[in-house]
Every structure is written in C-alpha cells, then in structure tokens.
C-alpha cells in the first residue's frame, strides 16, 4: 500500500490496511487511486461493483465499465504506473461496452450479454470468497481469541520392547559360537580329478582316431561324476593348448566363448 496512495482533493485518511470488505460507503467521490491495494483488475472491478450498493446479481455492467475506465484514465493522468493486466482489462471492458451498445442484430457471437454475464458470475464468486475470507479471519482463533492449556503435563506413549527370539535361533547361535571357536583340523578331501598328464594322454589318443574337427567336450569321459567332469574339462582344455603348442593339434573357435574344436595336425 505504500507509494501510490492518492486522495484527489479529499481529506480522508488513506486506508491503513485492507479490512476485507468493500470501501466505506459514501466514498465514491473519494476514489482511492491505489492500484497496489488491489489483487488484480478483477479485484478492483469487484470493489467498484460493491460501490453500486446493489446485489452483485443486479449490478450494472455498463456503469461498472465506465467507472473502471474512468479510474484507469485518472491513474494515467496522474502518471501512475499501471500494470499491464489492468490496461488489458480496460481495453476489454471498452470493447464490451461498445458491443453492448450495438443493436441486437448487429451483435457478434458470443453476445456481449453473455460476456457480461460471465463477468458478473466471476465477480460474484470472487466476492463470495472475499467475504468468506473475512468471516473466517474474524472467527475465534486459537492463540488469538481462545487458548489451549498453557502448561499441559503432556500425555506420553512409552514404547516397551518385547524381544523376540525362538528356540532354534538360540541353539543355532550356540552352534555358531562353538563352530567358530573350536580348534579346526583341516583335511583336504580326496577329490575325483583328471590330471593334466592323463588328459594329454587321453586327448592325444582320441585325436589319433580321426582327422575331423572334434569339439572339446567330446573328449570328456561320458558318464563321469559331475565333479570329475569339471576337472576333466579343465584338464582337457589345458591338454589341448599343450598339444597345440607342441604342434600336434590345431584349435578353432568360431566366436568368442563359442565351442572349442580341435583336430590332429598331420605329421
């Protein structure tokens, strides 16, 4: 509200603060030129409309348009800075007025009456909320008009832990402790393995049978224990590399990670 408050030729004090209702009755002549005091052009229009002192339903839109335009003109004459949206509204209202004054059959679509009705409906809704806000703020408010207990003792909920543990957890925990701490004797278990020597022997022998490419897996013992198969695969692979190094076999792999083939190199 600071700055642009102007009272053209009147000695009334400026409004100290917005009080949520339309301006004082009888202040038509003393139209406050305070654009800062309004929340946009619709708010200004509502305030002007309220000065007509009739129900917003029965408001004269033409009179309202004149008042608004006069107001903006005065502000311009006083070289007040006017926000663009106020000027846009003024231009639109001037258009609305001229349209309303046209004979009915020359009016365009949408008809100016419809535009005026929409404006009136918007003003009514904004007015309703402005009044509702004022009534809300005037209620008995906690901490201003009514007070809660100043020094409440407080109600507390104490959480009591109910610990959960079952028999099996307990026994297993003891087993863990024992296992972790008992002296451990390490014994390497005998595992089924194929040694490199036996793999070289086996692969060379099998390569001797044919000149065709054979997949590495074909060299493995067919019905072995899975653990032996793993060992045999590793040993046979190394055996194949060894035979290739010695020039006794050649290796082929068509794509990365693809099956590995080998065949005998003719002596």
């Amino acid at each position: 509200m600071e700055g642009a408050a102007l009272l053209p030729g009147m000695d009334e004090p400026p409004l100290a603060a917005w009080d949520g209702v339309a301006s004082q009755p009888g202040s038509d002549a003393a139209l406050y030129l305070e654009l800062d005091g309004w929340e946009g052009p619709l708010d200004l229009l509502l305030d002007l409309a309220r000065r007509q002192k009739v129900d917003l339903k029965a408001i004269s839109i033409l009179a309202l348009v004149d008042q608004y335009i006069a107001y903006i003109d005065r502000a311009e004459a006083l070289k007040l800075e006017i926000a663009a949206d106020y000027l846009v509204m003024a231009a639109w209202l001037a258009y609305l007025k001229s349209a309303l004054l046209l004979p009915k059959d020359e009016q365009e679509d949408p008809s100016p009456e419809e535009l005026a009705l929409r404006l009136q409906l918007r003003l009514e809704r904004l007015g309703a909320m402005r009044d509702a806000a004022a009534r809300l703020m005037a209620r008995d408010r906690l901490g201003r008009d009514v007070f809660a207990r100043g020094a409440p003792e407080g109600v507390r909920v104490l959480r009591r832990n109910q610990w959960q543990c079952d028999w099996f957890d307990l026994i297993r925990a003891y087993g863990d402790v024992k296992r972790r701490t008992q002296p451990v004797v390490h014994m390497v278990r005998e595992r089924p393995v194929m040694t490199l020597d036996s793999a070289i022997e086996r692969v060379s022998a099998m390569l001797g049978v044919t000149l065709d490419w054979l997949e590495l897996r074909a060299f493995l013992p067919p019905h072995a224990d899975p653990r032996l198969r793993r060992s045999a695969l590793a040993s046979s692979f190394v055996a194949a590399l060894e035979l290739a190094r010695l020039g006794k076999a050649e290796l082929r792999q068509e794509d990365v990670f693809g099956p590995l083939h080998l065949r005998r190199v003719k002596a």
Partner: protein
Amino acid sequence: MNPDEQGPPDDLLRAVEALLFAAETPLSAEEISAHLEGADVKPALAQLQAHYAPRGVHLVERGRRWQFQTAPDMAHLLRREKDQLRRLSRAATEVLAIIAYHEPVSRAEIEAIRGVQTSAGTLDVLMEAGWVRVAGRRDVPGRPVIYATTPDFLNHFGLASRRDLPGIDELKAAGLLDPVDDAFDEAMEQRADISPEPTDSLENPEESA
C-alpha cells in the same frame, strides 16, 4: 444444571477429563479410548462438553478430535501481545478461503476465481502455518497438484468440520462454489426458459446508476 450430572463425576469421566487437560494436542475419541483400556469414551465426552459449556474453559471438537480451550468471551483477558499472530496478506486469506470452500483445488482453479496469478510464497505461507497441505494430484493432463486444508486449520479457526465453514451451505445453495462455466450454462438455460427475448438490466445503466 445439566441433568447428566448428578453427584460426583465417575472415574471414566475424570480420566477423560485428566487426559484432555494434560494432552499437548487434540485427541480423538479413539486415542483417548486407547489410553483407557478401550473404554467407550463418547458418553463421557458429551457429559464433559455439557459440564464445561457454561464455564471459563470449554471442551470443543475439531475435526473429530477433542480439546479444552478457553471460552471465546474471555479473549479480551487473555490476548497476549508477545505472540500476536502474524498478519496474513489479503492474497493469503483469500487463497485460504478458496481452498477451504473448494477443496481439493488446484492452483489454476484458485487463479480462475481470483483472476490473478498466485505467487509461490502465498501457498508457502499457508503451508508453513500448517493450514494447507498438498492433497495429491488431479487426474487431468499435466496432473496438477491439488491443495486441501489440514486438521490444524479446523482447530485454529474453531471449526468442528468443514461443514462449519461460515456460510458454506448458502454459498453451495446459491451455486457460488460451482465454476463460472457451470453457473453460466445454468443461467443461460434459465433465461431461455423464462424469457426467450430477455431484456436485462445489463443494457440499462440508468436504472441502477
């Protein structure tokens, strides 16, 4: 005297009274009941409310939660300068009213009513005060955030529920909480019904000037 009140108050009534006096926040009937081994506390609440009605302290229900507070007519004695409420801007009070009467409501809907943009700070102030909260998103393109009031809002403004909002029934009945488009369609229909060739006051400025 209240007919409910004969002789000394019973222990359940005393217990509910003690709990509500001691509580730092409003308590729901369920919360009170949970402290009292699941007892049905509703009759005790009604009795207490009646007992305190003529006193300097009242028992009030706000958004289904109960609390004691000083009687409104004692305001002049209790007003304290030190904790004056921060004055809300006009924009903030209007936005708060629009949210309360229309909730849940998006920012665009608030702006449609006010005819101006709402600065981010305005909603922040209301949320900081604890009166407004984000209540999700509207299921329309853009999924705008929608706002609603909080239980603290009801508590602060002394409302038992949103139905207690001043004048809400009248506003609803007058269609003033409906969007302009709806009201416009309805008005056009009514006009068509009543007078096919309306001569309305809009064209007649002299009449109301």
